[in-house]
């Protein structure tokens, strides 16, 4: 065999060391080892696994096989869901608009990296502060109600969407931006006429995913901030009445909403992507 072919133990090697695979394997092995070893260092207390599983299954059965509304009427529940949706919508919308501008600032192909680093750090900060705490702070400053709930949720929406948008912006083919720069176009022209049309389908998809998440968050936060919504019923049903049937019903509503949102999102996305596929 010729010079560049590596042989070890009489066998021909089919790959050689390369750093990226090494790091990849290292990380994966680390995660696997960690997952195997770390649980031994946690304190568990006493659990009777058998009864625990029996209870879990029994609870799941009550939730999903026998859903029912008892404390609230169906119309009241639907109205509360509408409120929750409205809270989620507003925080997603405000978040999305602000995120768009922040994302432009934090996309590495559109802005110098020191600006984007500042925004990324700012985002990490916002994301790390629990939503409840944000809502509490806004409730103290702005009073109880939708303002506190929506602003609290908006902050996390911003942190999340800025990251998602910025990553899609960074995937834009640099050539397009370059082509417009070469015609003497201004920066805003490029944003509106290249970045926006090219990424709109990704943005729709991320925004709807966040809308879906925000609906879940709005359930909890609407109730905490006294802005109303189905979360209040869920809270009462779960920690006050322990009414698993009602919890199950409300969960079904949440699932239906999520599926509808996913459906709309796919429709819009396909429309934007166009007739290509």
């Amino acid at each position: 065999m010729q010079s560049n072919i590596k042989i070890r133990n009489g066998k021909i090697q089919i790959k050689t060391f390369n750093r990226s695979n090494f790091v990849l394997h290292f990380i994966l092995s680390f995660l696997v080892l960690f997952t195997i070893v770390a649980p031994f260092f946690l304190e568990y207390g006493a659990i009777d696994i058998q009864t625990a599983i029996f209870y879990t299954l029994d609870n799941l059965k009550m939730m999903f096989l026998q859903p029912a509304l008892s404390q609230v009427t169906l119309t009241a529940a639907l109205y509360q869901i509408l409120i929750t949706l409205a809270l989620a919508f507003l925080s997603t919308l405000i978040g999305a608009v602000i995120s768009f501008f922040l994302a432009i600032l934090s996309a590495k192909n559109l802005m110098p990296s020191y600006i984007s680093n500042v925004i990324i750090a700012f985002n990490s900060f916002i994301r790390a502060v629990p939503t409840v705490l944000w809502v509490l702070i806004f409730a103290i400053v702005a009073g109880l109600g939708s303002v506190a709930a929506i602003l609290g949720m908006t902050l996390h929406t911003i942190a999340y969407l800025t990251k998602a948008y910025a990553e899609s912006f960074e995937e834009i083919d640099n050539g397009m931006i370059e082509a417009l720069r070469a015609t003497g176009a201004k920066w805003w022209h490029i944003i509106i006429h290249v970045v926006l049309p090219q990424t709109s389908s990704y943005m729709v998809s991320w925004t709807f995913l966040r809308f879906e998440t925000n609906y879940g968050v709005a359930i909890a936060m609407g109730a905490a901030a006294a802005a109303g919504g189905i979360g209040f019923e869920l809270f009462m049903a779960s920690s006050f009445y322990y009414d698993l049937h009602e919890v199950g019903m409300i969960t079904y509503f949440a699932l239906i909403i999520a599926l509808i949102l996913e459906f709309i999102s796919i429709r819009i996305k396909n429309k934007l992507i166009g007739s290509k596929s």
Partner: protein
Amino acid sequence: ADTGNANTSDETSSNQENASNEDTSKNDEPLTVVWYPNESGNELKAARDALGSLISEATGREVEHKLTTDYAIAIETIANGNAQVAFMGAQGYIEANEKSSDVQPLVVPSGASGTLDDAVYYSWLAVPKDKAEEYKTNGEFDINKIAGKRFSFVSASSTSGFKVPSEAIVSHFGEQEEYKDLTAEDLAESNDLFPEVLFGDSHQGSAVNMLMERSDVSAFCDTCVSNYVELVEGEANTPGAVYKVKDDAAAPFNNLTGKEFTLISVTPVLNAPFVVNQSVLSPEEITALEEAFTSDETANNEEIFVPEGSETPGLFEKSEGGNERFVTAEDAWFDPIRELSK
């Protein structure tokens, strides 16, 4: 609320002369009442509305109810004046009052005597019935025996499910050399006294912990589980009383029907007050509120004080032949609870 406005319009306008502070301009603005999660249930809507129209009639202002699921938010809201009136547990009042001395008690629902003397409910320490004997010394229940057991509280912010029992335990064991450094705060986690500490997140949850034997001893309050259990032995609210989970008990007790538990310790807890923030209400408004709450008319309002045995749930109950009503309370009345936090 509209009729209330008409009735009291004279009064409010005359008030404006006297009250020369900035509040006068706010009088048309709605008045916010904050409710704790415990009182936020839908079935209590009628009761809340009855109290709302009471307040609205007294002050001539529209009332907005704010129902929150978060204790901290409720406390902060009343403390910084984003709400004028709140109904909160004694412990919550203490904390709000510490944040702002403008928060003061307005009235407290009384006991059957119609006075502050029996304006209490009870915090229990309960153990499974078949283990009850283990907690006795010479035939008497002995709190010393809970040392080394698995313990379950309700949640760290609960008056009757954490504050009261933990302070009672600390003051009892603190006298012993072994535990003299123990503080109530330590009890929130595994400690020298309890190898394992759980939280049930609700009174029901704490009870379930004990009934499922995840904990040996659980703390919870009487009224919170009254829908699920019935007395089978002994005198209510005394050590040694045995309660049984009702056969038709709803979740989370539905798999635990028929189980029995014994009380080994009972501590009275002060009733929850209505509180006001004085910086956002004029003294006249506060007086008017006090009068409205303590009136006989209110005491006889069956939407507010629901007669015992009635089908409709209410915030407060009127026992047979009892004289339950709202009575004014001073800040000092809460000192026993305040002492616990020190």
